């Protein structure tokens, strides 16, 4: 299967992963994974624990050197396109006891554009406030972050990504440990981002909600099991291929 390069290159995809193999030591975590995310879609990345979902994000963001292959964002390596990307890490990855408030955390989303040495000023505060309003958290702006519920903390993180004014959003388990109401609010927010022309990639673990929430799905278990529109590839066969059979909690995925 040789690639024939005659056609004009298509518009650069928000996220293209080609032939990525990544390993810790000699233990491969991702093996020859390739897929392309079209613009303006809500994409879930699913797979069992240890399937390489977080590693994939690391490779995409240049935090981990792949053993082979490459990932590009809008046709460029991440380091050349990071102003187009908003990132939402796992909520559990930070110390919520840190002495800072909600508004301050959201302002951190603007640090990249501010660059070295410049302090956030009034403009940044106003911008951050706007983002807090968008996620319905304006009244908590001055609240110390440990005084927020898990769902509220997650919304702060989303507001911070909004402040980045990105075209591609990478979010790592945004629904982990939030209640049903917050989950719906977050989904609503992700849909707004999509409606505004953004592309959202979500590392996700709740298979049951995939068909409701997402347009496309990447099913991963170290190698790529399937990738495409949810209705086409989110089949019992593909999912049990990734999860190794026992997926009784998979409802409505026919």
């Amino acid at each position, binding site marked *: 299967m040789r690639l024939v390069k005659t056609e004009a290159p298509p518009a650069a995809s928000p996220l293209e992963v*080609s*032939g990525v193999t990544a*390993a810790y030591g*000699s233990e491969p975590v991702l*093996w020859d994974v390739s897929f392309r995310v079209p613009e303006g879609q809500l994409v879930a990345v699913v797979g069992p624990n240890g399937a390489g979902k977080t590693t994939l994000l690391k490779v995409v963001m240049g935090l981990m050197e*792949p*053993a*082979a292959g490459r990932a590009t964002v809008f046709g460029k390596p991440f380091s050349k396109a990071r102003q187009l990307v908003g990132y939402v890490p796992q909520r559990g990855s930070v110390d919520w006891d840190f002495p800072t408030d909600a508004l301050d955390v959201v302002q951190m989303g603007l640090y990249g554009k501010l660059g070295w040495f410049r302090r956030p000023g009034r403009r940044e505060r106003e911008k951050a406030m706007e983002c807090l309003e968008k996620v319905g958290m304006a009244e908590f702006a001055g609240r110390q972050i440990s005084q927020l519920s898990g769902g509220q903390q997650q919304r702060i993180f989303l507001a911070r990504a909004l402040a980045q004014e990105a075209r591609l959003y990478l979010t790592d388990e945004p629904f982990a440990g939030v209640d049903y109401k917050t989950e719906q609010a977050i989904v609503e927010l992700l849909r707004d981002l999509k409606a505004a022309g953004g592309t959202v990639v979500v590392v996700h673990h709740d298979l049951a909600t995939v068909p409701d929430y997402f347009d496309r799905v990447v099913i991963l278990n170290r*190698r790529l099991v399937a990738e495409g529109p949810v209705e086409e590839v989110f089949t019992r066969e593909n999912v049990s291929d990734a999860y190794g059979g026992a997926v009784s909690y998979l409802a409505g995925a026919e």
Partner: protein
Amino acid sequence: MSPDLIVVVTAVLVAVPCALLGTFLVLRQMSMMGDAISHAVLPGIVVAFFLSESLGPITSLLGAGAFGLLTAALVEALKNTGRVKEDASIGIVFTALFALGVFLISRFASDVHLDLQHVLYGEIAFSPLNALIVGSVNLGPRSFWTMGIVTAMALVVVLLLYKELKIATFDAGLAAAVGLSPALVHYLLMGAVSVTTVGAFDSVGAVLVVAFLIAPPATAYLLTDKLARMLALSTLLGVASAVLGYYLAASMDVAIAGMMAVVAGGFFSLALLLSPSRGLVANSLRHRRNRRSFSRKLLLARLEALGNRTTEAELCENLGWEAGRVSRALADALRGGLVLKPAAGEVTLTRKGREAATGPQAPVR
């Protein structure tokens, strides 16, 4: 008994209980509690020093040791307020108690024999001069008695409670499930460490006892995977550090206890570099070997995917590797008879190479 021998035996009697108890500190990731306790017992030692006329040696040992338990309890309490994290709690408690001890010594004991250097690195060289005299009978060096008792205590704790310590260290959940209180084991260990650091204080001081507590067990941890073997090995390493350290220090006329710590650190550094299973050298060799075989495996798989025949340039492009890495991996595969180069720049898989590429280990799962 010659003074040399008295010093060496005293050092060995310090090394053995430290190695035994330190093994559990290292495995439970509480090494810095050992450091904290060894400092925090100072006020207890000062008080015991003033009262030693009225208190017997064992009472002083236990009384001063109580400050070690107090440290453990204070750290726990401070952490449990939720207002200070554990590492900061340790730092706060031990520095405060140690400062109190130094203050007491400077204020009230500056004219008696309990000076500040002594506090930090001990005066093991004086152990032959300090005999335990009961009535008018000379019972031999005092350090033998103190550290003999401490060593016996550590042996009893570790031998009698071997099973309990083991469970509580490796599986606190299971320990609780079988009715073994993790808190009890914790405080027992802390208490034993306290008494040991108090006993070792005269000989090696507050800081260098940490070298005896932590370095030999950490060294042993780099060399073995079995708890019993780790205990034995760290005891052996502790004793070797003590003996070797003494003779080195004596030959150079430098601080004895300091040299013992340096030797213990030297053993650790050797194991760190050269341990056959976990040393840095072995690790980096293994890493390089793995990387090479992984590169080869990847190359073969990609060649297979590209239809068994391609060019070096295309491989570079496809793998996203630099030319150097591709040609190194190719040379490697050529040597193994896995690929052929039918023409300059072209590459194809041999039959052996095709088998390797599609073989059972190549793709994952």
